[in-house]
């Protein structure tokens, strides 16, 4: 690993990108474009949380939207019922994250001891349950009409909202990178690779799965919080299966088992959504973007099973290996 001082070069590259992105709203103030980039940041966070389960630990979730939705509704309900002050904003965020932590803990404890499809099924069922609950509990959630609420003035400004989302993305990215590179994170990858063997090395796998399920749920909920704040309106679509599918697509297209992959994937998918919905006037097929994404998804799985980030990483590794092999050959020649 190449290092500059004590910090990896990749860290500087990511930080540089972060700084460049921070300048964007000051030089380029197309509101709808800024809104799109904010959505990319938010779904980048959400997709990273999904990849903690899928790519790092090998846990499949079919209901990740549930955490996104709980986060979005948590903050929305608190803000709708109270004054839009910073205090209630923070309270709302804490409520949202706390609820997500409790739900992900319970879902994890109930199913992560069992075969892997139980978690997938339970999350799917729970997400459906939350969708119905959000529709029925009209007094709290506004039912299918949704909730309109106000947020502290400071964040009504697009640029400030943009910076909030960007800073969140950067902080979460670096925190998760540290997490996945920690001794605990390495065990998660071992579990993905071979559960049986991880156990026979003396690790208990159940606590790891619960821990990562809670972390993933909380991060996803934070994505939901930012989503609600950026739109200042919320309805039951945050619990829809589409939201989970988006996270899955972003992760797979960007590259499972990496953190930058889901962010790249979020960029592509969100941009494609935006682009295709503009094309819907041209032909109805573009409104059915999920069909197109289905095709893209199949192609990616066949031709780039490791996604964009994974494929690049692989190419880099191969080149490095070739170089090493050449050096070794030379050494051998000299030796003989």
């Amino acid at each position, binding site marked *: 690993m190449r290092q500059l001082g004590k910090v990896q070069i990749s860290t500087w590259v990511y930080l540089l990108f972060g700084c460049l992105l921070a300048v964007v709203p000051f030089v380029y103030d197309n509101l709808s474009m800024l809104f799109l980039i904010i959505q990319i940041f938010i779904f980048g966070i959400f997709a990273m949380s999904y990849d903690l389960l899928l790519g790092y630990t090998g846990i499949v979730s079919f209901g990740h939207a549930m955490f996104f939705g709980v986060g979005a509704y948590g903050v929305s309900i608190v803000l709708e019922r109270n004054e839009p002050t910073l205090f209630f904003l923070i309270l709302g965020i804490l409520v949202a994250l706390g609820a997500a932590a409790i739900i992900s803990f319970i879902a994890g404890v109930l199913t992560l001891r069992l075969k892997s499809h139980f978690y997938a099924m339970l999350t799917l069922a729970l997400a459906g349950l939350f969708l119905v609950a959000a529709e029925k509990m009209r007094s709290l959630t506004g039912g299918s009409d949704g909730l309109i609420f106000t947020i502290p003035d400071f964040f009504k400004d697009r640029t400030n909202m943009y910076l909030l989302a960007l800073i969140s993305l950067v902080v979460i990215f670096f925190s998760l990178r*540290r*997490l996945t*590179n*920690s*001794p*605990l*994170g*390495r*065990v998660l*990858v*071992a579990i993905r*690779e*071979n559960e*049986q*063997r*991880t*156990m*026979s*090395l*003396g*690790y*208990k*796998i159940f*606590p790891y799965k619960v*821990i990562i399920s809670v972390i993933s749920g909380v991060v996803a909920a934070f994505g939901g919080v930012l989503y609600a704040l950026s739109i200042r309106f919320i309805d039951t679509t945050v619990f829809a299966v589409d939201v989970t599918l988006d996270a899955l697509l972003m992760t797979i297209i960007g590259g499972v088992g990496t953190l930058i992959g889901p962010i790249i994937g979020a960029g592509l998918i969100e941009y494609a959504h935006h682009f295709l919905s503009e094309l819907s006037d041209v032909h109805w097929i573009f409104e059915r973007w999920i069909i197109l994404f289905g095709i893209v998804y199949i192609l990616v799985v066949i031709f780039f099973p490791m996604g964009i980030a994974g494929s690049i990483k692989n190419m880099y590794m191969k080149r490095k290996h070739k170089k090493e092999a050449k050096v070794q050959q030379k050494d051998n020649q000299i030796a003989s």
Partner: protein
Amino acid sequence: MEHIIETNNLSIAFGGHVAVDSLSVKIPKNKFTSVIGPNGAGKTTFFNLLSGQLRPTNGEIFYKGENITKKSSTERTRMGIGRSFQITNVFPNLTVLENVRLAVQSNEKIRYQMMFHFKKYKKFEEKAMELLELVLLETKADSVAINLAHGEKRKLEIAMLLALETDLLLLDEPTAGMSLEEVPAILEVIKKIKEKGDRTIVLIEHKMDMILDLSDQVMVLFNGQLLAQDSPSEIMENKTVQSAYLGGLHDENSA
């Protein structure tokens, strides 16, 4: 003599097939026990029962006097029962070094640390590297495990087992699939552990001439049952063993 692990009437059946049949054995502490027997005799299954990969349908296992029959493989490893696998069982998409480093990390009980970078624990990697040197795999440290040749995977298995520093080492055909030149080095590693005299080794092997001089005692399994348990020389003389299993091999050796 003190015994580290004992089984009492241990049996397991897969469907109707009894793979291990009422096995009651005692493994002496800090000694070298070989397990031999023809293909399908139940040797690997016996190991799977000892290390907790499988639950017996009947019988009990005692480790250092404690009944461990109901303990998980994780708990047994932590108590000091380590094993290598006959069918290679590693982390396929991780590097060779990382495979061993994970074993070292477990042995150092750093399990839930999530604040620091794993590289902070430099000594884990150094320890893993030492083990790779010991099993002659240091040049492959950065290779991905799935790309190793079969014999190399066997060496990786051994390095991972040694990293756990368990009191009891269960080795399932450690040299199978290795090239002939590599076998002596691996046997040397096993011999060294034996000579230290503070650990118990149980080793499954087909090529019994190879391990005969290492063994303090030999167990012969046949159809899931214990056919004989004795010193190597007695086993070679044993008529039942000869007729059931060793006959040809023994003649070959003495010829």
